[in-house]
């Protein structure tokens, strides 16, 4: 194994991305990495450090700055049987590949029956004072478009299994890595390299009073807040969606039928964020079970500010999440 994880019993979220990539490249010679500065440099966040030496320039491909072109290249390579893993340096730059992603990648299988196994990795999210064009949550840009899967792991132990599953999946998969979590979160033991099933949510904390539906960094915020609220006697069930498209609404609805109350949390802007779809579906499928309106907690309807006090005011904070859960649970 490439990373020095082999001997360790502790790994970061970032390590897990590397371990997943490494395992899959090792196993399958059709998998290759492509992106800006992924080779000798190991990527802006050093996820692919050492890969060039191990796999050589054929399978670890540094490109010109050309998000449209590289995404299209990946589509072509995938159509003829390779399994490209594209790295976007920051998820924000995926805007430059919006056109090929929706018009070339997403629709191709439905139109023709040809598989399109492209994995697109992108570090996303706020909390690093990186400002409006280096901090975006991009899942809503793509979630309306049929044919793309969107995977957003929160727990370090899910990262590699979901990444491996994404690479093996025959469809375009957007794999969104929360860059704030990269080095802040640790998993215990060895990295699990068994593929997970895409499209399956996970109840990461059981509870009875209110359901918190979330994903990515929200899982950690949610678990922390749930722990706090437990002291107040409020029992929160926390669901980690893991894959936001396809959405495992059954797990969500089942929980809401039990708790009768739901809060949705994400770092993305509330307006037409994933919470809008989830809230609508809960309401469509469990209306008669609801004791309270479903509440959405997310970022304010503004770009992600750069300066820390502004950024903090924009993205959901623990107090706000706690207040929402209390309000919904107690009302």
């Amino acid at each position: 194994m490439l990373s020095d994880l082999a001997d360790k019993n502790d790994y970061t979220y970032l390590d897990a991305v590397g371990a997943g990539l490494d395992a899959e490249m090792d196993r399958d010679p059709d998998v290759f990495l492509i992106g800006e500065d992924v080779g000798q440099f190991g990527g802006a966040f050093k996820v692919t450090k050492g890969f060039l030496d191990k796999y050589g320039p054929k399978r670890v491909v540094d490109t010109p700055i050309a998000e449209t072109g590289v995404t299209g290249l990946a589509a072509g390579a995938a159509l003829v049987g390779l399994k490209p893993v594209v790295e976007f340096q920051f998820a924000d730059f995926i805007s430059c590949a919006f056109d090929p992603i929706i018009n070339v990648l997403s629709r191709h299988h439905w139109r023709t029956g040809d598989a399109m196994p492209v994995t697109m990795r992108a570090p996303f999210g706020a909390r690093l004072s990186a400002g409006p064009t280096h901090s975006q949550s991009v899942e809503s840009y793509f979630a309306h478009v049929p044919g793309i899967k969107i995977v957003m792991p929160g727990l370090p132990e899910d990262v590699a299994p979901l990444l491996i599953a994404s690479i093996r999946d025959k469809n375009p998969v957007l794999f969104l890595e929360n860059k704030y979590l990269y080095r802040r979160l640790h998993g215990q033991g060895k990295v699990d390299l068994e593929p997970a099933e895409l499209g399956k949510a996970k109840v990461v904390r059981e509870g009875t009073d209110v359901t918190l539906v979330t994903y990515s960094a929200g899982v950690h915020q949610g678990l922390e807040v749930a722990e706090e609220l437990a002291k107040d006697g409020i029992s929160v069930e926390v669901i980690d969606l893991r894959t936001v498209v396809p959405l495992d609404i059954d797990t969500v609805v089942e929980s809401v039928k039990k708790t009768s109350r739901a809060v949705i949390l994400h770092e993305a802007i509330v307006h037409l964020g994933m919470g809008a779809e989830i809230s609508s579906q809960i309401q469509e499928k469990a209306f008669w079970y609801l004791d309270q309106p479903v509440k959405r907690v997310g970022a304010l309807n503004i770009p992600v500010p750069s300066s820390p006090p502004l950024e903090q005011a924009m993205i959901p904070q623990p107090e706000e999440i706690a207040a929402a859960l209390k309000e919904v649970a107690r009302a």
Partner: protein
Amino acid sequence: MATSTPAKRTAAKKNTDNTSTVETIASPDPELASKLTPEVLAAIDVKDTYANPPAELSDRDPELLKKLYHGVIRGRAFEDRMHSMYRSGDLLGSYYSGNWHEAIGAGIMAAMRDDDWFAPLHRDVTAHLMRGMPPEQIMASFMGKAIGPTGGRDGTLHYGRLDLRTYNPPSHIPANFPVATGFAFASKYRGEDTVTVAICGDGSTSRADFHEAVNLAAAQDLPIVFVVQNNQWAYSTPLPLQTHSATFAIKAVAYGIHGIKVDGTDAVAVYDAMAEAIERARSGGGATIVEAVTMRMHGHAEHDPADYVPREMLEEWSKKDPVELLEKRLIDAKVITEDEAKQTREDARKWAIEARKIAIAAPMPDPSNIEDGIYAE
């Protein structure tokens, strides 16, 4: 003819009024083009064979010439059928005529191997047919019929079949260019000697996809040939409003690859240019932009009367019918006889009529399973 900016008004005027020689018209900026002496072009790896006389045929392989001939004849027969089907209301929407582009398609296909990869756009019927796409499937695509390559899910010009190593492109032009670099990348990755050929129009060169794909292919040394069909119009937009480049072949300079400008109405010349470019790509010599000059003789699509195109320009170009030209030359060179030519044309006509019958008889698709296939399993 009124065009969009005062400065370009003159350029376009100069360009579209000066119809005495078709050569002049074919460049976005004839003045710049005139500075490109053979020495200058050689220094920048660009070749201009556009003004050359038709290639000598006597020492050519007759099989190759016949292949080209059958290709353009079938292409033309198919085009004729589609025009009449459009007029008689057989089609759902419009048809994007490939008239005067037949020699380009035939030249490309005669130079490609079956295991090479092909990424066409919207005027490439002749090439598709030569590659093995059944004519009734193409017709079905324009009719929304179940037997079309996508079973009616996509339609009109969005056809292609991966089993024929042919990409089925979406509307956005030239989205096929980046995809084509992926085909070429895979050939190199696997150590195969297959080459990819992608086609776009003059207007398509202005877009992101053209630039990023060609630069990427060059930077990665991919085995690929980019064909620019310079038919002098992009919808209603004439060359001088599209770019100020002297030619399209010379755009190769910006990417450090090779450029060839060729007469797109001369199937043999196109074949030669493609054979050179494909051979170079196959042997690891890098990418080429082949500019094939022709004229769009119809509207952008059949619903477009194209009254923005000067009549004299059409008249001038009507003398350069690539099918007639090739036929005459082959008869003169005694590669075929007049009778054979007549028979070939008649066979092609019947073949196209037969295809129409199949397409007409085919059912419309059943909507019951349209939600299937969003994801590959």
